């Protein structure tokens, strides 16, 4: 089929022909077409099915407000449901399919809903489907869910990429119609930093759809000239295909640029869309206006659309919806459509004007004081019935009907910060109110200035006002017709007249909503779903409100206003995510020995944003436990090395450094000697344990503090709070050095021997010279500066050695070579965890934000002699009660039996329920040293229940184990090893 409805002229490139497919059939189009104009050119009026009644639907509009003409665009993983045909820029090979229909668009089984529509009135589902209760999930809901929804997702990952960007400007102009272009010219010539954004791929707005002249040019030519001048200005950035979606606080606007949607396929690495965050000093909204339909019987047939849409298709796209067209209007603009169509050779069946005093025409018949009362045509309009003032009716044979009920200003962005529009009698429409977003002003038809010349002027004036310009540029001549309109919302007596076409909300539904007491605008919307469809009521809200006002016997402003929320038009979720997808969701932090560990075949685990080696399997080891048990045994028997770079490191300096640490730590630091390290317990102000770590005093005025990996950032923030907000006159300086030093724990009886092979001879690290908890600056491997701490997490004789990160890889390799004679092993976080459980060291599982020092058996560390963070509130009654949880060790009576972290502890006899809960298991592991599963737990009065037998229950994992309560220090409770 060739383009039978194609006319002459228009802004399309006839030199090239594009092929596209709709619902499996092939058609042709030209560059400059939208899918909508191309379908009309090929005489395709039926495009989709409505949401509830599955009524046949075509196009209602030619813009982004389209409620009906939605398709599934593209195929496979790139399938894009609910895409408005009116905004799809044609490209060669475009594939689109109809949606919400089965088995086919022309014969849709669920169209039976339409026959039962009387039973499916507004909110009917709230009143039924209640018996029997169980039937809802099993029967009713699945049926409703399948029937509902519109398009479908591919269920495959979106293969395209999206970018985010940030732009700053003096003036953001939203919309490039006459007002926006004139504003941009005014501001641009004055040298301001301007961004001009428009959702269309051709700038110009309505000007591209009109035939009248602006200055000495046709409207589209004038727009093109203005665009040419603007694009030559270095201080002006034009952003076509860019929808400004929301007005956020303090002049920040969200905008989505469709950089790739008009291309058959994306070049590698290029984004499909870019989400821009635009920071504007001032913003000027020139978003134009939207023509609204009139509700009458069967006003939803394919072929019935807004008059301005017909005009746009004819003038801009050189396409008529049908060779024979009728117009139904309540204002003069409808007549402009008729004359434009007539001029293009389209037969005008008649102009039906509700006004007695409608203007006449020599070119076609005008029926004054008449109304369209019904339409016919199964899958598309074939004729309309008109009621004449004398009571007689007349039938007009036509394939399309243009409806004009007046224009609504596009006030959407003025409402995004809860601003309310105000009613304008002359326009019978809402216009922006007083409380606009800060920095925003409005011009053109968006502000109720409907004539072209008025729009040009208001654009220029608004820009001048924003920039304090004294002179206005010369304005071109343009039509300046007054508004001539008689408010008319719906035809009386109609039974099924559509207000919200996509959601199938009729005049009757609105009236029923009132009858049932849902009378506030919000109740109306929620009860009938009016305005809740993908067009968010752009073509229906005001009409619904007008009907509600009439039945309530109130004026429209008394009845209420509808305000709008972002986004202005729907935005792909992918665009909000940008590049933060897949592996790039969060940055990945690698330790200096990561590449070495990878060579060793380490298995890695996420620790916050870090990747840490979890264990290092050797050839032949088939189960992780084998590797972990070996790492633990080798370390305790000889020596092991663990990368602990991820621990937070904070450099604390200043003459008050010690006094400062005395405040942030619950235990004392004032008297810590230079060259010594101390374990530090940090509380939150509410008395719960926040973090633990060590502080090494390198000099009188210099400490190096370590934090847990998880809390590095929050502890640093907390310390800055204490420094700046609580004790501003302390001489303390803080800076993180976490990434600067590669730090390794060297643990085990032979750790000293191993280190002595790399530490330069002038440094004596013997037990006498460098005892437990000693620290100092040293050099290794012939002069590389390093730091050595004699601290132990494993409970063995152990050190932590730190070198500049760039040498971490080399140091680790060296330790492995030098350690061969001691059968050294690298060990990962699992072995680390096993050894700390064997020693009863609390970590994340125990420091869960609800545990106090007392719970963890560290109560004595909280100094009463000083005022430190948390030292007061940790003393609250319930936190020091006799039965508070205490950290204990757990051993299964049968060592083979597994202990489950997350299991709960119950007395051996008595009921098993929450009322008798005694505590829970925080950590569990298999100890290759004790040849037994072991665990740590928090147990009521735990410290007083050593040796007691209890039941560990985990109904979730179907497990019950008899356990014995033991000391949390399973190994070397006296700590002899680490002092060796």
């Amino acid at each position, binding site marked *: 089929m060739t383009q039978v409805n194609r006319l002459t002229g228009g802004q399309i490139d006839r030199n090239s022909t594009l092929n596209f497919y709709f619902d499996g059939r092939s058609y042709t189009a030209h560059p400059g077409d939208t899918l909508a104009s191309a379908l009309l050119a090929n005489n395709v009026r039926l495009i989709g099915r409505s949401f509830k009644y599955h009524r046949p639907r075509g196009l209602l509009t030619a813009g982004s407000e389209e409620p009906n003409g939605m398709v599934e665009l593209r195929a496979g993983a790139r399938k894009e449901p609910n895409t408005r045909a009116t905004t799809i820029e044609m490209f060669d090979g475009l594939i689109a399919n109809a949606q919400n229909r089965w088995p086919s668009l022309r014969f849709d089984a669920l169209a039976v809903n339409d026959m039962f529509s009387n039973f499916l009135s507004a909110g009917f589902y709230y009143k039924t489907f209640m018996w029997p209760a169980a039937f809802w999930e099993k029967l009713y809901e699945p049926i409703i869910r399948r029937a509902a929804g519109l398009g479908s997702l591919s269920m495959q990952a979106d293969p395209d990429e999206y*970018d985010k960007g940030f732009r*700053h400007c003096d003036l953001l102009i939203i919309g490039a119609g006459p007002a926006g272009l004139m504003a941009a010219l005014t501001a641009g010539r004055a040298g301001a930093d301007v961004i001009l954004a428009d959702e269309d791929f051709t700038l110009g707005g309505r000007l591209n759809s009109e035939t009248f002249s602006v200055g000495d040019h046709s409207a589209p030519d004038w727009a093109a000239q203005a665009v040419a001048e603007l694009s030559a200005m270095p201080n002006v950035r034009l952003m076509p295909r860019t929808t400004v979606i929301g007005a956020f606080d303090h002049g920040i606007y969200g905008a989505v640029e469709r950089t790739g949607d008009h291309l058959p396929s994306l070049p590698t690495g290029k984004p499909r869309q870019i989400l821009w965050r635009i920071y504007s000093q001032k913003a000027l909204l020139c978003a134009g206006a939207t023509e609204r339909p009139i509700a009458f019987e069967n006003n939803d047939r394919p072929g019935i659309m807004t008059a301005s849409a017909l005009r746009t298709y004819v003038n801009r796209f050189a396409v008529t919806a049908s060779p024979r067209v009728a117009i139904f209007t309540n204002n003069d603009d409808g007549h402009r459509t008729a004359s434009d169509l007539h001029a293009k050779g389209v037969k005008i069946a008649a102009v039906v004007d509700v006004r007695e005093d409608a203007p006449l025409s020599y070119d076609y018949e005008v029926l004054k004081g008449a109304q369209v009362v019904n339409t016919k045509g199964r899958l598309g309009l074939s004729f309309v019935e008109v009621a004449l003032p004398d009571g007689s009716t007349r039938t007009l044979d036509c394939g399309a009907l243009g409806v004009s009920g007046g224009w609504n200003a596009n006030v959407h962005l003025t409402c995004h910060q809860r601003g309310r529009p105000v009613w304008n009698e002359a326009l019978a429409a809402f216009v922006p109110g007083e409380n606009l977003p800060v920095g925003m002003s409005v011009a053109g038809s968006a502000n109720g200035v409907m004539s072209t010349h008025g729009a040009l002027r208001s654009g220029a004036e608004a820009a001048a006002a924003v920039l304090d310009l004294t002179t206005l540029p010369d304005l071109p001549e343009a039509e300046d017709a007054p508004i001539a309109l008689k408010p008319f919302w719906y035809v009386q007596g109609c039974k099924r007249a559509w207000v919200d076409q996509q959601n199938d909300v009729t005049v009757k539904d609105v009236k029923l909503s009132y009858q049932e007491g849902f009378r506030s605008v919000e109740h109306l919307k929620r009860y009938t779903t009016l305005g809740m469809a993908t067009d968010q009521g752009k073509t229906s809200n005001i009409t619904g409100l007008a009907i509600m006002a009439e039945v309530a016997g109130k004026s429209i402003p008394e009845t209420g206003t509808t305000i709008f929320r972002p986004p202005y038009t729907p935005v792909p979720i992918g665009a909000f995510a940008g590049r933060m997808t897949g592996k*790039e969701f969060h940055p990945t932090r690698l330790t200096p020995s990561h590449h070495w560990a990878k060579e060793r075949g380490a298995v890695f685990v996420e620790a916050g944003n870090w990747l840490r080696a979890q264990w290092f399997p050797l050839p032949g080891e088939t189960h992780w436990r084998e590797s972990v048990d070996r790492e633990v045994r080798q370390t305790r028997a000889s020596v092991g090395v663990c990368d602990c770079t991820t621990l937070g490191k904070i*450099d604390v*300096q*200043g003459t008050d450094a010690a006094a400062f640490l005395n405040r942030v730590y619950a235990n004392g630091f004032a008297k810590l000697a230079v060259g010594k390290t101390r374990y530090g317990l940090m509380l939150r102000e509410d008395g719960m344990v926040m973090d633990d770590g060590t502080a090494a005093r390198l000099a009188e005025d210099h400490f190096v503090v370590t934090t847990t990996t998880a809390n590095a950032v929050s502890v640093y923030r907390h310390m800055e709070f204490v420094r700046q907000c609580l004790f501003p006159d302390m001489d303390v300086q803080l800076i993180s050095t976490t*990434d600067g030093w590669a730090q390794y724990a060297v643990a085990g009886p032979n750790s000293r021997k191993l280190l002595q092979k790399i530490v330069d001879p002038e440094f004596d690290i013997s037990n006498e010279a460098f005892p437990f908890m000693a620290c100092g600056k040293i050099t290794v491997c012939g002069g590389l500066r390093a730091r050595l701490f004699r601290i132990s997490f494993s409970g063995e004789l152990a050190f932590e050695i730190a070198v500049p990160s*760039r040498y971490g890889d*080399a140091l680790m390799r060296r330790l492995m070579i030098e350690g061969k004679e001691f059968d050294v092993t690298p060990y990962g976080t699992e072995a680390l965890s096993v050894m700390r459980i064997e020693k009863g060291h609390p970590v994340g599982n125990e420091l869960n934000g609800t545990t106090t020092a007392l719970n963890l058996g560290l109560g004595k560390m909280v100094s009463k002699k000083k005022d430190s963070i948390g030292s007061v509130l940790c003393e609250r009654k319930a936190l020091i009660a006799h039965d508070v949880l205490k950290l204990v060790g757990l051993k299964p009576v049968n060592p083979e039996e597994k202990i489950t972290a997350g299991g709960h502890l119950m007395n051996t006899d008595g009921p098993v329920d929450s009322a008798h809960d005694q505590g829970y298991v925080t950590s569990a592991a298999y100890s290759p040293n004790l040849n037994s599963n072991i665990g740590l737990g928090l147990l009521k009065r735990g410290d007083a229940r050593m040796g007691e037998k209890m039941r560990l229950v985990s109904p979730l994992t179907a497990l019950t184990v008899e356990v014995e309560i033991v000391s949390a220090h399973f190994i070397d409770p006296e700590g002899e090893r680490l002092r060796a």
Partner: protein
Amino acid sequence: MHDLVAITALGGAAPRVDTVGPVTFTEVPDVALTSVAARLGQEAKAREALANVIGAPAPDIQRIAGGEKTAFWSGPDQWMVEAPYNGHHDLADQVKAAVGNTASVTEQTDAWVRFDLRGDGIPSVLELLSQLDLRCLSSGTAARCSIHHVGCYLLCRDANHYSIYGPRSSAGSLHHAVLTSMRSVY
């Protein structure tokens, strides 16, 4: 002299270089870095001492100053001092010797990875990465910013030369983010 071999932040023996369109993106390992934070009540003296170190007045808020040793502002009465790594691997000690007790000095060399962007049209790449108002980031200014959730310093040395300092552990993610944006634009 010790016998350990350094690797770059991206894990290579040699720095990574990528060119896309007019922009060249280079990993720069040959830089030593140290922080200088004035002691309470010593702010004036610290600025003086820092001026002697870099041979120029201590840079003001968000500014860069200096010669072979340069400093950029990193916070209230805080600066970062950068110098070529060769000859300054002990930069912190050198600076500490110079500022004495007027300031706290902390080695930062390997806490950061430095990447340089050279060429025309760098702002087009940066506007996909940073929410800073690049109109304000003129030659000789430095600002902290967040790039794909990674906290960085962005230095504009001149219109065709920018430096990015990011946390060394995140070098890979940062490199990927910048390179992706270069390919997105050019």
